[in-house]
């Protein structure tokens, strides 16, 4: 049976880009459908009625939602070029750090850009702590996944790429060589990995998008 793989995503979303990276690592061909979040397609609403969000992967007509759930599915379905390690303890650590990044780092980094006043101060403080935690976890490894990128690196590309762009727009200085040298070095390495580099949104387009939003938010 021919494999039919579709991905519903949004150009600027780190969540849908991470699924694309996983598919590219596995060499899986897929049809990409760009969603307009202000005008969600009937297909998206049919495939993800619970959350109505991107990304959604549809494999031979069967939909899967939630980016990390999708990536684990991809890793289990196409077994070459593994994204998660084989050893159960290493897998547990990988899942732990991916969850930490998504549940703690991303919201703090996002809020440190967009919130105001005391909330912003608190978010900045929290974001700094989390970046330090990641710095300490990286230790002397080239990537969070070791010698090769893995799930944590893919998930953390928000920190490496998206937050870099956000920082430029907001003027915040959290991800700096002075504060988190290993994380900065990792950011550079990971963003220049060809499978990631070729599947990131245009930095200029992202900066333009964030700048416009920042200008609106500052009014």
């Amino acid at each position, binding site marked *: 049976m021919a494999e039919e793989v579709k991905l519903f995503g949004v150009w600027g979303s780190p969540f849908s880009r991470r699924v694309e990276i996983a598919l590219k690592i596995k060499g899986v061909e897929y049809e990409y459908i760009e969603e307009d979040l202000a005008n969600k397609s009937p297909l998206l609403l049919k495939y993800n009625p619970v959350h109505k969000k991107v990304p959604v992967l549809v494999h031979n007509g*069967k939909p899967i939602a939630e980016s990390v759930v999708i990536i*684990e599915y991809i890793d289990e379905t196409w077994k070459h070029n593994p994204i998660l390690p084989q050893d159960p*303890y290493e897998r547990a650590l990988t899942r*732990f750090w991916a969850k930490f990044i998504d549940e703690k780092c991303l919201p703090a980094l996002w809020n440190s850009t967009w919130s105001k006043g005391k909330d912003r101060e608190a978010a900045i403080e929290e974001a700094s702590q989390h970046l330090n935690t990641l710095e300490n976890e990286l230790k002397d490894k080239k990537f969070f996944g070791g010698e090769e990128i893995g799930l944590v690196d893919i998930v953390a590309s928000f920190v490496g790429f998206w937050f870099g762009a956000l920082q430029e727009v907001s003027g915040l200085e959290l991800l700096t060589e002075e504060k988190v040298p290993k994380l900065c070095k990792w950011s550079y390495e990971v963003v220049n990995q060809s499978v990631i580099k070729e599947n990131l949104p245009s930095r200029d387009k992202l900066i333009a998008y964030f700048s416009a939003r920042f200008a609106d938010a500052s009014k």
Partner: protein
Amino acid sequence: MAKSDVKVLGAWPSPFVMRPRIALNIKSVDYEFLQETLGSKSELLLKSNPVHKKIPVLIHGDKPVCESLIIVEYIDETWSSAPSILPSDPYDRATARFWAAYVDDKFFPSMKEIGFAEGVEAKKAAIQQLVDGLILLEDAYVKCSKGKPFFGGNQIGYLDIAFGSYLGWLRVTEKSNEVKLLDEAKTPGLAKWAEIFCADPAVKDVMPETDKLAEFAKVLAKMRAAPPK
């Protein structure tokens, strides 16, 4: 493996702590249950989970594993002989993980919301939101169980553990708000599943009694209302 090789750091009222305990019971793995005292965190906990400082933590030999559902997957992969906790098919696994995430990210917060809601209207709205969630979960139950007793089929699986661990607190919420949430009329499948789940040998000794939990809820509420030291 000797019992002391597997430890669970936790506390009896926590639904999250129940999860690894159920998983270890399913695998017939002996473990030492080390209970934390309410209001303080042990040295062992702070050392084993420095990032979150939270329970549960599984300590296997000298390796700590944190985050309840990550621990459940670790248990399934480490003690890999039957019975399996995660389904074997990748799509069924994705479905189970999707709903487990829903239960933690949406269902549980909406259950807490009922407790925080102030005023009749707010409470009504919070209750309705939870019931809407239960109806979604009923549909998921019908699809996943395919006529068998559990989300996981003939035996308790990952999603049964993820959702079932909240049943104690769900019953406390029903009692303290004098409302039936898991209703035979609206969610017949889940109502029946809840009984079977709680009676299962892997669950019954770790599921706290509703009355005890309700008492604990009062202690917790008092602690939270008390002025900070």
